[in-house]
């Protein structure tokens, strides 16, 4: 009987361990949009990594700067060479925590809104940020989404005088990802 109890306890322990799942993707869509009266600039990156630890709420989003694609090759060049200096700072990363992770049930259909609070690092500058996050569970499809605004000045991204009017100080960033359960 005692053995049975231990077996049960072990099974329970095992099942909670497997529930402490990670959800991830390596094809997160990240885009940004700069709107000014002179010019609209858009770029997107479809190879972002997003990992959520459903037990702790730990979240990491990472991408390479050079994987952002622009409509024009020349814009992409300027973005990499003049603004983001991507040879020196090849990455952008967000590391933080999802608030109220226990209120999100990754196996129960629904739409859950929360916040991700942590550190956004790009162009070698770290900034504390808190952004709204929506997690949608539809059958076995889990989608994570956020939208927030970034000011290039906060990341010491230097925009020279002649093009200042062409690049917004409120650049809208969107992230959308379809997450899969990590199987080990």
């Amino acid at each position, binding site marked *: 009987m005692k053995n049975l109890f231990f077996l049960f306890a072990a099974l329970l322990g095992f099942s909670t361990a497997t529930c402490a799942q990670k959800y991830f993707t*390596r094809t997160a869509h990240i885009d940004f949009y700069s709107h000014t009266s002179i010019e609209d600039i858009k770029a997107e990156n*479809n190879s972002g*990594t997003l*990992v959520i630890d459903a037990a702790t709420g730990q979240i990491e989003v*990472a*991408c390479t700067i050079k994987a952002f694609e622009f409509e024009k090759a020349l814009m992409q060049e300027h973005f990499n060479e003049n603004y983001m200096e991507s040879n020196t700072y*090849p990455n952008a990363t967000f590391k933080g925590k999802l608030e109220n992770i226990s209120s999100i049930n990754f196996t129960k259909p629904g739409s859950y809104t929360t916040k991700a609070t942590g550190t956004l690092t790009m162009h070698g500058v770290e900034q504390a940020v808190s952004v709204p996050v929506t997690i949608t569970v539809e059958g076995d499809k889990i989608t994570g989404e956020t939208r927030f605004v970034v000011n290039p000045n906060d990341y010491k991204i230097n925009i020279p005088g002649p093009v200042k009017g062409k690049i917004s100080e409120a650049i809208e960033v969107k992230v959308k990802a379809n997450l899969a359960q*990590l199987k080990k």
Partner: protein
Amino acid sequence: MKKKILLTLLIAAAVAGAYGIYLWNKPKRTASDEEAAASLTAAELYSSFATDATGANALYLDKVIEVRGTVSDIALNADGIATLTLETDDPMAAVMCTYAPDAANTATIGKQILLHGICSGMQGDLMPSVVLSQCSEPQ
């Protein structure tokens, strides 16, 4: 004399204009246009970044490289373009490849594949990936 100056100026303006138009419409870079700067396995590429990211960036960042590896996942990205995950020696790490929009794709899960792609570096700590874009399978 005046006419000559005017003509020279006009030609200069036309050349500058044409060059401007050329720059503005410069085509995007694809991996198939260039010779590979290095040839290695997905495991070698990842371990190079994992052991010395700065050194690996100097070697591979923005370069067309040829990578061999086993396909562990195939997915379409948000633009409907095929992506491949290539295995490395670390189960949490991968080489993430996105095909060029018009590139032929013969990948199946478990298959050994050879790809040419532009390396944009490594991203992430929990599940690191080395990222290749504009990939194509060499003929």
